[in-house]
């Protein structure tokens, strides 16, 4: 018996995998989880260490002005000269990769993102590390997918896998990472990549735990609902969070428009504007610098003066909007949490001052505030609820969190229709599919547009008559049987092939085994289109879910085109 060497066994295994892309994708998901987890941990630790070196305890105040400027200058030059695709948060760029570039993100972009973001974040630029981590993760997934010879579709499917691995490691939130990849990156909670996204998220989380241990990002005291009237205050917090989110998004978009109007040759120096502003603000309030998670934790602990948190919320909105719009590398997740915590802390302080015995401490409101800002700015309400829960591991806050998040999301949606990432893409001239537009299309169901007056041909009708009736209706498919018992369908080609049409009954032509194509009334139109294409039919029977033989209507290609606005109603009625 031939004994194969380990090397040839691996080669055989990899060759087998190449031929089975599904299996390769699963193996790659594990690999991506490990690699992205390790990279993101390195990114976070390196950024943190560099920041500690830049701002030693008790360091002089001038450092807070000079270092952000220098950091912005260096990263601005690197971004302009070497890594133009590493600019910004990383989320819109990842979506571009999926929707425009077939999942392509270059290794150079990954390295550039790592380098530029480490520089700018360590220097105190008021942006977050999670968005860049997502692009780094997506980039690693894309590079691996290509190197392992996956098809374009396969590479594209790996991008959200990298995103979830990155977010799981960056935030220590494996469930929220999965949800974010589906809800924001893909815009579809039922996406078929769910399995691989979960695998990579879990793997990356395990790596994080092996390296850094089991610690949530924020430690918060156990808060509880003190009095039912607190729901009212949480609702107010939702309103404040929503308004704060809208202010932030509008300011960021407005400033970005202004910066984009400047000559392209100034792009390398534009980030300095953000660095200088954050430096000047940091001179007076050092908490504005960087991500500011340390201060968020303090606020969550409930210890802060009202004036400080209110001021910090306003300053962080201005600082982050300027830093981002001027072209610095960094994300808005972290700042969103910071802004939310400050807004929540301010609302909580006022509430606790007014109703000391009916309300929890201000820290509880800061906690919920984080979720409201996240839901209002990033517009992923489900992710934000789960994320805050995972960040704090405090189950008692879930219900108030859901309430405030929903209100914040609603207000943000009403006052700023375009979600931030889609709006940013639009400024680049890219039209990304929004979750809303996808939902709108999915919302049109077969039952909404079908003709409910379907009249199947009787089974004893001869083929000649049936052919003539089809021509009258302008279709190539006809239903055979009765309304309560559909025998099957026949198409024009079938009828044309019958040798003696006037003598032949439809019952002799139709296939009685029930294997005809059909749709149900609650199916989306897209599925009807797919099935029509597969059956080469321009009409399908719409049948009951309780009994596939019972006809509820018929849907035609013309009906679908009218529903999508491609064809006029009158034209649709005319036979083609």
């Amino acid at each position: 018996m031939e004994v194969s060497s380990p090397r040839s066994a691996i080669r055989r295994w990899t060759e087998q995998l190449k031929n089975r892309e599904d299996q390769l994708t699963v193996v790659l998901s594990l690999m991506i989880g490990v690699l992205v987890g390790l990279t993101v941990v390195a990114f976070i630790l390196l950024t943190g260490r560099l920041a500690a070196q830049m701002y030693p305890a008790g360091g002089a105040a001038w450092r807070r002005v000079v270092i952000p400027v220098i950091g912005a200058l260096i990263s601005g030059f690197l971004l302009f000269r070497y890594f133009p695709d590493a600019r910004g948060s990383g989320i819109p760029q990842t979506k571009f990769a999926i929707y425009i570039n077939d999942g392509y993100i270059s290794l150079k972009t990954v390295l550039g993102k790592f380098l530029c973001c480490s520089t700018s974040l360590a220097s105190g630029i008021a942006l977050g590390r999670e968005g860049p981590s997502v692009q780094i993760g997506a980039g690693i997934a894309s590079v691996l997918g290509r190197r392992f010879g996956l098809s374009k579709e396969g590479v594209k499917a790996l991008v959200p896998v990298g995103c979830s691995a990155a977010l799981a490691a960056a935030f220590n939130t494996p469930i929220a990472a999965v949800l974010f990849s589906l809800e924001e990156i893909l815009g579809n909670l039922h996406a078929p990549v769910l399995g691989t996204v979960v695998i990579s998220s879990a793997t990356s989380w395990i790596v994080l735990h092996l390296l850094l241990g089991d610690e949530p990002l924020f430690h918060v005291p156990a808060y509880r609902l003190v009095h039912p009237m607190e729901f009212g205050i949480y609702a107010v917090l939702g309103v404040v969070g929503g308004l704060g989110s809208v202010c932030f998004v509008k300011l960021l978009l407005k400033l970005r428009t202004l910066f984009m109007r400047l000559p392209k040759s100034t792009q390398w120096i534009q980030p300095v504007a953000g660095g200088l502003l954050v430096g000047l603000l940091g001179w007076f309030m050092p908490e504005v610098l960087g991500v500011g998670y340390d201060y968020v934790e303090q606020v969550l602990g409930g210890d802060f003066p009202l004036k400080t948190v209110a001021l910090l919320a306003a300053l962080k909105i201005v600082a982050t909007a300027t830093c981002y719009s001027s072209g610095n590398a960094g994300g808005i997740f972290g700042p969103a949490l910071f802004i939310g915590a400050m807004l929540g802390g301010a609302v909580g302080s006022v509430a606790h001052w007014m109703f000391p015995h009916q309300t929890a401490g201000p820290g509880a409101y800061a906690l919920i505030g984080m979720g409201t800002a996240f839901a209002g700015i990033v517009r992923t309400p489900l992710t934000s609820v789960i994320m805050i829960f995972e960040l704090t591991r405090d189950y008692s806050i879930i219900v108030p969190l859901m309430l405030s998040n929903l209100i914040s999301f609603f207000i943000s949606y009403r006052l700023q229709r375009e979600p931030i990432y889609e709006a940013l893409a639009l400024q680049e001239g890219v039209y990304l599919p929004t979750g809303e537009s996808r939902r709108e299309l999915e919302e049109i169901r077969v039952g909404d547009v079908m003709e409910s007056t379907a009249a199947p041909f009787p089974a004893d009708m001869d083929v000649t008559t049936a052919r003539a009736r089809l021509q009258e209706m302008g279709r190539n498919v006809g239903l055979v049987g009765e309304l309560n018992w559909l025998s099957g369908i026949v198409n024009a080609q079938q009828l044309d092939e019958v040798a003696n049409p006037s003598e032949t009954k439809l019952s002799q032509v139709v296939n009685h085994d029930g294997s005809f194509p059909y749709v149900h009334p609650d199916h989306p139109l897209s599925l009807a289109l797919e099935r029509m294409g597969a059956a080469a039919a321009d009409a399908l029977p719409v049948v009951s879910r309780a009994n596939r033989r019972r006809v509820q209507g018929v849907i035609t290609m013309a009906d679908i085109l009218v529903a999508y606005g491609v064809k006029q109603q009158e034209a649709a009625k005319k036979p083609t």
Partner: protein
Amino acid sequence: MSAAGPSIPTNSPGAPTLALLILVAIITGSLWGLDLFLARTDREAVQNQANGLYTQGVLLLKQGQPLQAVDRLRRANSLVRDNRAFQLDYVAALVAARKFDEADASIKVVLETEPNNGPANLLSARLMLQEGHLQDAESHYHRAIYGAWPDTPPNQAPAHRLAVRLELVDLLAARADKAELLAELLALESDAQGKTATLKQIADLYRVAGSPARGANVYRELIQSNPDDIDAYAGLGGDEMALGDYRSALTAFLNANRRSPGNRMIQRDIGLLNAMAILDPTPRRISSNEKFARSNEILKLTRDALQACSTTDEAKRLVEDCDKVLAKKAPPHVTNELAEARLALAEQLWQARIKTCGPSTSEPEHALRLIMTKLAHS
């Protein structure tokens, strides 16, 4: 940011996959090594920073600046989250800064993971005490006494438990919860064998717990082991006085005075006992004449005490009755019954004085107060 991105290279199905796997393994290994190095460096730096903050915080707490201490200790805790000493001192600082809500929430987190932790329960007890939850405080004191002291060397744990029990005993004494206090003192006495200072404290508290006889026994044992212990003699004198044995009390105070002649407190007690010795009508050795004279003196003193503080009709009537009795000439042969009648009247006057003016606290009436208490119990 270019949305369209660079030209997309085509995939290469014939790529050297084995080499790629090796490359990925090498990158993974390198990243793992880098992460371990960074994590260790980070942990060390963070630990050093936290230690510095902790030291500052503890110092500030000792210097009586709890607010600044809270700030430092909070930062130390947010940097290193699993250090029990950091957590407990943070809670202590919060209590000192009167941030009870936060302290409560923080100590609960510790107790949830270690409900049997002695120091955490002690802190919780102190917090409950500050918040006025005496029952809860007592319960946490007991958990601290019988709980684990994990970060304490084994030989020091009993000393900590003893200190906690003393703290609990002080609480019970302040609440005048005599039954519970006595129970704790009995347990404490057996734990404190050989610890003279603690035993003296216990003996004093026995008096508060309404058991001066036990206190006197403790002092006697202390005197036996150290016959020159001035405090023990003074304490014994106090307990004997509480028991109403003024002669033994005087003997104890005189012993103390002999060993510490300049002690004013002892001299004051001796003065008091001398005054009582002149006034006390109960000793059997005194003659009927002497008893009658002392009873007369007590009657005069109680009349003066009532007159000094009350002008009610009832008081006036009693004072008039008293004056009539005192104005009567004493018979040539006085009997004990005559003395007892005067003492009974003095008792009425004293009760009227307490009723209208409250318990006497004045120093000049101290001897009279003790005599009247003794008479009431005899």
